[in-house]
């Protein structure tokens, strides 16, 4: 089971030294994200959905104190959202201007991830 975060986008696109990346990159974990860009290579969003695939407990504990990161529920993709406390997710979506429809139109946690990915490619 992987951890997912909504993360601030940091960097300015400078190769190597300050590439566009999620704030998760500040921590010693393995991570990946999709970063849709315009025709000039500039990211469409100031946030990103990040998947963390390798981690340490210490790194996770530190990350979860970082206000630039909003942890999403640590559950399997097929878990029904109706069984989860989604209030923190709602707050994060509103604060980042992502739109609540991505959660209101989802049945499972996997649906939510898919909806957020689609919203990243087509921002409001």
């Amino acid at each position, binding site marked *: 089971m992987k951890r997912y975060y909504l993360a601030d986008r940091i960097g300015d696109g400078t*190769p*190597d030294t300050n*590439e*566009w990346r999620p704030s998760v990159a500040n921590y010693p*974990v393995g991570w990946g994200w999709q*970063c849709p860009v315009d025709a000039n290579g500039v990211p469409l969003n100031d946030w990103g959905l990040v998947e963390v695939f390798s981690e340490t407990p210490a790194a996770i504990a530190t990350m979860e104190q970082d206000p630039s990161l909003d942890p999403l529920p640590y559950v399997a993709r097929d878990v029904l959202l109706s069984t989860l406390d989604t209030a923190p997710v709602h707050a994060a979506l509103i604060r980042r201007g992502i739109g609540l429809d991505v959660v209101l139109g989802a049945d499972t946690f996997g649906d939510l991830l898919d909806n957020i990915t689609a919203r990243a490619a087509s921002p409001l």
Partner: protein
Amino acid sequence: MAGSPFLTEDFLAPDGTLLENLGTGLVRSTASGNNGAAQVTNSRATQAAATNAVYCWGSNPAPSPNHEVSAKYFFNSGAGNPSVGVCARMAGPGGAPLTFYQARLVNNSSGLVLARFLNGAAVTLQSAPMNFAFGDDPKVTLRMQGDQLSVLLNDQLTLGPISDSAIPGAGYVGLRMASANVNQIRVTEVRATSLDNGPAPIVGQLNATLDGATISSSAQVQVAGALSKSLAPATLASAAALASTAGLTKALAPAMLTASAYIEAEPPQQDGVEGTLSKILAGATLAASARVAVRGALASTLEGAILVATATVARSSFDISKIYPSRVVIFEGSGSRVTPFDGSGSRITPHDGSGSRVTPFEGSGSRITRFE
């Protein structure tokens, strides 16, 4: 994953040779800030100056967007945070802003990284922290199948797959070295393989084929079994490749390899020769930039062969480091034996160990200089 190799680079040239002078189609970027030089050091590519070095194999575009490119690294130092990566779907040679996908290692920092460069701006798509020490020789592979990107470390999937469709074209394969810590990471070899289904390889024996045949540009012969008596007297044109996963014998007598054609023999790998390579090139002609790389046994070769201009024959462990048109420099171990060229003016200089034997031909002007 099965596929058809379309690029092989072993950086076989004297130390100090700039990559654009290897004769293998490498072109240096002219884009400001990315036009630094890379050169050969001990048969490896290394950044020559602090300016970022970006190269692509400009004469050898990828046959399709679906391919993988791998590089074998060598850590000449475990310090600092040098950044060296293989690139694919590159926009091509010239001075245009950088556009490509890159799999790189950044030691003591972000580790293994998958990045996307688009018009000179870069996004880190995936990263996994890891460090390497002096002498480590990891292999990094960037694999692209449609919009699915992944990175393998020592043939193990480490990053991805991840979806990204920003750079869909086939483009070119290349290298990027970007670091003030020049010369800490070297690249030993680069391989690129198409992942599209091509002609089915020959699984069994291939005997007595290709007599008089001509293999045109980019054609490939890949044989899973033994390959014998082939290519006599075939011609391999530019960029043609011949590889066998078993013994390769009696090939190329008296075939011609023109510019950039190559014959390759290696230990068991997906695109090399597992067995020995013997009796090739007897009477063969290697034109400028043709290459023969052998990492298995190499026996009885080069009898009467002609190597033109920058043609190179190398054997693993640096047993044979350089061959010039009429001069062979050989570093031999115990029990070695050398059969030199026949011809006027040829010269052989063995630097040998105990038990070595040299059997010269009696050509006019032949000379053997031996250092005990």
